[in-house]
């Protein structure tokens, strides 16, 4: 009859609760019948018991010691904080908030197709035009200055005075022109 296989190498794991149920049963069955393994099991178990016992004795608090160390309770406001959300709920809330922000910024974007712009950007174009006659080079703020261009809903003009520069007509468009539109000269009737 072959002697039973000792379970020496399994005893530490058995004590630490690291064996499978099958191995645990094997150790328990063997230890029941083997004095040598039983002694080894007792010695290994003693380590854990000694640690527990030593710590219990060494760290025994004195009378009133722990009570003296008790911290004061915090001062809480009477407004209870919002219940702690689970991580999944927080993610959903963050996604909804982000979507709302993106939708809002897109709807307010001036370049969005089909959106009427109630406040059109004023395009200022400077056109150097040939004049049939010398133009007045009076500055706009000169008292004699009179713009001879009839008022128009689409543009307004004035002629700035720049010494030594050709006469220029500054055309300020009130409404934006479509892209690619050439800067038109003033109407002939508006030429001096």
């Amino acid at each position, binding site marked *: 009859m072959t002697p039973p296989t000792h379970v020496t190498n399994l005893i530490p794991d058995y004590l*630490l609760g690291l064996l499978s149920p099958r191995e645990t049963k094997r150790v328990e069955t063997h230890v029941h019948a083997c004095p040598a393994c039983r002694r080894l099991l007792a010695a290994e178990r003693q380590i854990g018991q000694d*640690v527990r*016992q*030593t*710590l219990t004795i*060494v760290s025994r*608090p004195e009378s009133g010691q722990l009570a003296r160390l008790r*911290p004061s309770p915090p001062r809480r406001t009477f407004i209870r904080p919002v219940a702690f959300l689970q991580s999944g709920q927080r993610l959903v809330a963050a996604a909804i908030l982000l979507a709302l922000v993106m939708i809002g910024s897109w709807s307010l974007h001036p370049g969005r197709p089909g959106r009427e712009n109630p406040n059109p950007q004023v395009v200022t174009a400077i056109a150097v035009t040939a004049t049939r006659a010398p133009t007045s080079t009076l500055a706009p703020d000169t008292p004699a200055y009179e713009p001879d261009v009839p008022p128009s809903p689409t543009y307004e003009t004035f002629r700035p005075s720049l010494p030594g520069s050709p006469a220029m007509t500054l055309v300020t468009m009130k409404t934006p022109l479509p892209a690619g539109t050439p800067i038109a000269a003033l109407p002939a009737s508006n030429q001096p």
Partner: protein
Amino acid sequence: MSLISDSHWLPTWANPAEESASAIPTDPLEVLVARCLDNEEAAYHALYHHFAGYIYRLCYGLLQNKEDAEEVLQDAFEYAFRRLDHFDPRKASLKTWLYQIAVSRCRNKRRRRLLPTFSLHQVAGQEIRDPAALQPDAHLLLNERQKAVWRALGQLSPKLRETAVLRYYAELTYPEIGRILGISPKTAESRMRLAHKALKAILEEKP
């Protein structure tokens, strides 16, 4: 069981580790937490008295110093009281949550201890106190074997000592140990194997 009087919650200091949480059902603990959040000072006192022994012994085992353990105990409970509204009973028990805070504070304490500091003893040329040395009164209470065990515990690395104390003293499961230490249960099991092996080797070296 009434939660009004503090005296119901005073544990037996002789061996609070064996005063298992099963003696007090978890529901009353959750009620106690709710009362704390409603600003009941008596509830805070009761909560402290119930868990202070466990936390103090855990800190003492990890830091091996009475003054450090007292400081961490106070610090841990101050933090726990302030953050009690963040405790989620679905994730861990109150005891595990408190252990987690205490272990974190112990690690901070240990890191600060490693910073270079100068004490009057060093300046005066006297021997630097061994932080793992037993207090004089504790020295008298232990036999030689227990003194050897205390020294062996101090020789373990901090990671192995944490695992050993949580397993041997607090008798926690490996998933609970993993949650407290921020590691997987498998890692906790590996560390426990190593801790047990190291303690055995150190103790067998002693005459």
